[in-house]
């Protein structure tokens, strides 16, 4: 089987599984689950073979031909795609296995697993696409899968609203994306990625800032950057495995992947904008995470922050690199650092989410971290894996996140000191809120009945945690990656000399500082001193009681975007919609009805001719004869 055929099979299998489940296995949740997990295993095997065997190819077939525009359906399987495919397949398989136990009592299992299959299909389409149109099509598919899965418990109003919000916000970003694609086709004449690369390397004449910025709009929507980040925290209404797969590891990373794919279209001004947007998002999200009580929302804001890191890394662009033989070449260090961090982030974020899923499952669907505690002894396996993940995300040396963060900070240090400072401060905040989370959930004494009676999860939930924990520990060591990915990971440079010392010391300082602050502020005595409101054992956050004004400011910051958007929608957009509705009813409806009325009138008049009297018909006969005669005589 040729690699292109295999890739096509990997793409078609989950689609077939989803279709089959949707048609026949809706009620048979167990069979749907088995089918879906089997397909996920197949995809993992295929992806690992394709990625590690070093085979790289391009294949295409013409799909649609409209005049001069040709939309083709093809695969571009280079190192970047191989890396992303392996990540998606691996995390996807882990999530599938985890869902077997997590969703075992759910009533709509069939729909859930069909949704997971459709998501795998769409995501792999984005990874494998060789032109922007195809990528856009699968982009929309991914948005649809996300909507479907967030909306899984659609009997409640909150998930429905959250799913709508996610889809609409994505749509706003996709509008810019589509404009960018059209503009790219207009100016460049092609949307095929390979052709664009060839064009750029041989020096394309027209200089366009608009194309990369418009295409970045798609990434803003999909990867939840400022100002379209409002959907990601709400998307936590979906089941936890869905959050792990879609809203942590893969779908939100699609924006970053897309940026790396279109790197040949970038210009310095666009890159600067992108870098600042990413940095602002990272800082903002970290500030919001500090005040959260819901375990999944903390992780959601943490995802936002890390995505901001990746986007900022991409925006920092390429650096000059001195090779061993003394030459300097231009290396796309931004792409390398962003993809490296994407890889490690996929592993440890998925692990964090699945771990939190295990905790939620064990505590019987309790999600407030102030009602947990003391789970270290009761759920020890989850505790150990979760600790590895926390170590990775805060950048503890030799864990995965350390290396990728170091690459990003080194890049920032050499390119833009201001961004470096902000990212370092954000790293401190990351350490602060992650340690806070870890401390409140696992250490200390149980603070509620459900935490006291927590139990460890079953095998199918522990196995993925183990796999991902291993990756979180060893995923940062680039030498362990096969040479097949060198085309991408090799671009993430390690800092040298004095820069290395500076970056290393900075990252260690912020790590220790943030962690210490968290452990002090959230010790058991501090929590006890913070007190509680009488109703429902609602323990107060020590931060809230200790520094009320700071806490209040942070909460306002967090809600500001939502408030602004709601105001806009209610006051401006809704009124415009009502006006348009009125115009439609009266204007267009009126037009159609008046045409119908005229036809009716004509009918009434025709009816009046049926007099019923013979004479009248003879008069018509006479008229006809007269007309005929006029024709014959040449008068008419």
């Amino acid at each position, binding site marked *: 089987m040729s690699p292109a055929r295999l890739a096509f099979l990997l793409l078609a299998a989950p689609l077939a599984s989803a279709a089959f489940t949707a048609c026949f296995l809706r009620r048979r949740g167990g069979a749907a689950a088995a089918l879906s997990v089997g397909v996920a295993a197949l995809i993992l095997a295929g992806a690992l073979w394709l990625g590690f065997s070093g085979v790289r190819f391009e294949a295409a077939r013409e799909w649609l031909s409209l005049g001069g525009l040709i939309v083709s359906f093809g695969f571009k399987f280079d190192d970047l795609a191989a890396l992303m495919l392996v990540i998606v397949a691996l995390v996807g398989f882990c999530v599938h296995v985890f869902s077997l136990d997590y969703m075992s009592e759910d009533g709509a299992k069939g729909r859930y697993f069909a949704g997971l299959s459709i998501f795998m299909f769409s995501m792999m389409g984005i990874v494998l696409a060789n032109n922007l149109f195809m990528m856009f099509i699968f982009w929309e598919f991914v948005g649809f899968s996300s909507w479907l899965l967030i909306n899984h418990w659609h009997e409640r109003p909150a998930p429905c609203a959250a799913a709508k919000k996610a889809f609409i916000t994505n749509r706003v970003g996709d509008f810019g994306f589509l404009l960018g694609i059209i503009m790219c086709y207009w100016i460049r004449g092609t949307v095929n990625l390979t052709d664009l690369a060839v064009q750029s390397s041989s020096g394309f004449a027209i200089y366009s800032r608009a194309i990369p910025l418009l295409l970045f709009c798609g990434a803003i929507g999909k990867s939840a950057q400022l100002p379209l980040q409002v959907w990601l925290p709400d998307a936590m209404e979906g089941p936890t495995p869905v959050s792990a797969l879609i809203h942590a590891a893969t779908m939100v990373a699609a924006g970053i992947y897309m940026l790396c794919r279109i790197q040949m279209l970038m210009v310095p001004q666009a890159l600067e904008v992108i870098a600042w947007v990413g940095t602002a998002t990272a800082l903002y999200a970290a500030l919001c995470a500090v005040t959260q009580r819901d375990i999944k929302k903390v992780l959601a804001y943490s995802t936002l922050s890390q995505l901001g890191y990746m986007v900022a890394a991409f925006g920092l662009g390429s650096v000059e690199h001195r090779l061993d033989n003394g030459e300097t070449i231009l290396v796309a260090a931004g792409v390398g650092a962003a993809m490296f961090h994407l890889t490690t982030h996929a592993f440890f974020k998925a692990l964090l989410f699945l771990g939190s899923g295990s905790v939620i499952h064990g505590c019987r669907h309790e999600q407030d971290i102030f009602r947990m505690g003391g789970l270290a002894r009761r759920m020890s396996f989850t505790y150990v894996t979760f600790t590895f993940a926390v170590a990775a995300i805060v950048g503890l040396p030799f864990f995965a996140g350390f290396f990728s963060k170091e690459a990003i900070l080194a890049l920032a240090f050499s390119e833009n000191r201001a961004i470096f400072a902000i990212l370092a401060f954000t790293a401190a905040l990351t350490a602060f809120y992650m340690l806070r989370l870890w401390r409140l959930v696992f250490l200390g004494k149980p603070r509620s009945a459900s935490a006291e009676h927590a139990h460890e999860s079953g095998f199918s939930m522990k196995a993925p945690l183990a796999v991902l924990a291993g990756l979180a520990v060893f995923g940062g060591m680039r030498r362990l990656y096969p040479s097949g990915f060198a085309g991408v990971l090799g671009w993430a440079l390690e800092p040298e000399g004095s820069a290395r010392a500076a970056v290393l010391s900075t990252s260690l300082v912020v790590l220790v500082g943030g962690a210490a602050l968290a452990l002090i502020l959230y010790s058991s005595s501090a929590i006890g001193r913070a007190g509680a409101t009488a109703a429902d054992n609602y323990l107060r956050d020590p931060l809230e009681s200790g520094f009320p004004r700071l806490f209040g400011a942070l909460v306002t910051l967090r809600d500001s975007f939502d408030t602004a958007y709601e105001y806009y929608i209610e006051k401006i957009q809704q009124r415009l919609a009502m006006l348009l509705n009125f115009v439609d009813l009266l204007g267009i409806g009126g037009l159609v009805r008046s045409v119908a009325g005229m036809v009716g009138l004509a009918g009434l008049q025709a*009816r009046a001719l*049926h*007099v*019923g*009297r013979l*004479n009248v018909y003879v*008069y018509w006969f*006479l008229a006809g004869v007269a007309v005929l005669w006029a024709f014959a005589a040449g008068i008419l």
Partner: protein
Amino acid sequence: MITASLNAYIGLSAILFAIGFLGVLLRRNALVIFMGLELMLVAATLALVAFSRFNATMDGDVFVFFILTVAAAEVAVGLAIVVALFRRRGTIQVDELDSLKN
């Protein structure tokens, strides 16, 4: 004997046809309308015979046979209908036979 041009015969036929048609147009008694129809047919036969005579053929004459027969059949059936109508409606003024109105 009688020598008249073809134009004269045709003109006469036209006049008779017109009189018959005006009768159909303007009279309201169904029977008189029928008589107008017969008059029109007779005018047509006159024209046919005149043409066939002046072209020295027989075809027009033979056709008159058929016209005669058809006219007879038509009168029979038409008058049967008029009688049936009169039995139903009690009138033969076509003005009042307008139950197909609208």
